[in-house]
């Protein structure tokens, strides 16, 4: 084994409680970070789902040409009050219908593509524009009827839901960031304190190494390695615990939200999300360790 790794492990073995406290605070930090990252991701998804739901559907006449459709689509896209314009062809409309009635094959077999008109769906930047825009779209020659789907049932409109979700998402993100930031700061401090203690116990050794011609890098290496070991252990443990948690609750969450894709649909996609989070955490963990050990080492030099 490399001499620096050996030195680092020797010191960890000699002070197991220091190692334990460093690893546990880092584990807690990265556990919470992983939770917050997944929550931020899924609340964002939830918000996006409602934001991008079509609020207005303009059903098109049967005989429209693609040129007419794209002309209208461009016109709507250019309108600042209108968002997320999407063209739904007859076939797509049929598929949507079929999916919705999949429990009842009889219903789906009764229909042919021709009954479903193609449509342009879009949502509005603000519901107060609805009346104007609907009136305007109705006048278009290729538009047959205009449907307004903003009402979700009860008295709440889609707009209400979206704005409430926006607030919640914001709180989740800010709260999560503050929590992670505080935990990160505490881990950093603990790391610095422990590295500082290590420097103090190694003082004699450091002086000797210096006199026999060790470079500063040589002297620093075991200390940096030790800090990296703590951080990686913290990241892996924190992430793994969070991973188990999500593994356990995901089926319930997916069942609860149904068609709303709060979490990635496939297990595979969810794994990719978690692996990306792990990668980011390893990066942040190594930065914490490097920064912390450099700081402790440079401080020790100044006091020597």
């Amino acid at each position, binding site marked *: 084994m*490399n*001499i620096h790794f050996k030195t680092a492990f*020797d010191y960890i073995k*000699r002070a197991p409680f220091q190692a334990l406290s460093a690893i546990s605070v880092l584990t807690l930090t990265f556990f919470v970070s992983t939770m917050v990252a997944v929550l931020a991701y899924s609340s964002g998804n939830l918000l996006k789902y409602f934001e991008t739901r079509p609020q207005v559907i303009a059903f098109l006449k049967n005989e429209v040409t693609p040129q007419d459709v794209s002309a209208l689509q461009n016109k709507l896209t250019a309108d600042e009050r209108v968002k997320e314009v999407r063209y739904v062809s007859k076939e797509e409309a049929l598929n949507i219908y079929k999916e919705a009635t999949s429990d009842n094959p009889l219903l789906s077999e009764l229909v042919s593509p021709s009954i479903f008109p193609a449509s342009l769906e879009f949502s509005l930047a603000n519901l107060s524009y609805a009346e104007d825009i609907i009136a305007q779209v109705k006048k278009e020659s290729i538009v047959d009827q205009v449907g307004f789907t903003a009402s979700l049932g009860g008295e709440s409109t889609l707009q209400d839901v979206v704005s409430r979700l926006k607030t919640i998402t914001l709180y989740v993100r800010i709260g999560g960031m503050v929590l992670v930031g505080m935990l990160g700061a505490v881990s950093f401090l603990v790391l610095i304190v422990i590295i500082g203690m290590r420097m103090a116990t190694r003082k*004699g*050794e450091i*002086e*000797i*190494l*210096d*006199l*026999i*011609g*060790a*470079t*500063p890098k*040589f002297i620093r290496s075991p200390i940096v390695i030790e800090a990296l070991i703590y951080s990686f252990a913290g990241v892996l443990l924190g992430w793994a615990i969070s991973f188990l948690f999500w593994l356990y609750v995901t089926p319930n969450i997916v069942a609860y939200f149904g068609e709303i894709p709060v979490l990635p649909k496939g297990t595979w996609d969810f794994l990719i999300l978690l692996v990306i989070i792990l990668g980011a955490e390893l990066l942040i963990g190594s930065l914490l360790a490097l920064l912390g050990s450099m700081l402790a080492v440079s401080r020790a030099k100044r006091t020597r």
Partner: protein
Amino acid sequence: MIQFKKVSKSFGTIKALEEVSFEVGKGEFVYITGPSGAGKTTLLKLILREYQPDSGEIVLEGVDITKLSDEQIPEYRQKIGVVFQDFKVLPERTVRENVEVSLAVIGVAQEAWSARVGQVLKLVGLAERADLFPNQLSGGEIQRVSLARALVVNPKIILADEPTGNLDWETADSMMELFEKINKEGKTIIMATHNKVIVDKFKKRVIKLKGGKNVGKEKVHELEKEPKKEENEKGEGKMKVKVEEV
């Protein structure tokens, strides 16, 4: 190989060395002698660049080492083997590991360690004690760990600060025989000592310090008497410089 040119070093009001000049040739074995407090350790520390002189030049193989930058110091020190007065072995590492650290410091590949460490441990007679910790060794053995560590890097110069200081005469003798053997292999050795018996027995050139000044180069048998009492009593206070021609 080494030249001191009017080197002075003081600590506050204490003049540890005053305009010391001498020269040591390649492959030479010289003693730095003088009473306690004469500046022997300070002189060796100057060679190691642990201290910077207040004035003067220290030239080693044509390079004025007082002008080395901080970044150049590690590489410079790697060329020097030191047997410290207080051993400076790593207490939490075995004999073998203590010696290995030296090799790691100069960047020798790990595969080559075992052979080189085995060889020096055999030379200093510690082969059977390779896996013991310093606190399991006798004083003389620890001294030899320090020597093994200095030797293993194959340095050009060996500095030894009172390497026989804490040893009984028998052990000291065997230590000196080791140094002579190493010197015969071509290494330059500068040894600080106040042990008259040693200096008398193993005759080498002597560079004598007294109150921070060097007072000439004499042969062993001409060496002046041990430190006078009045000087010792002055302790760490200002040392009155006495130049005695002997």
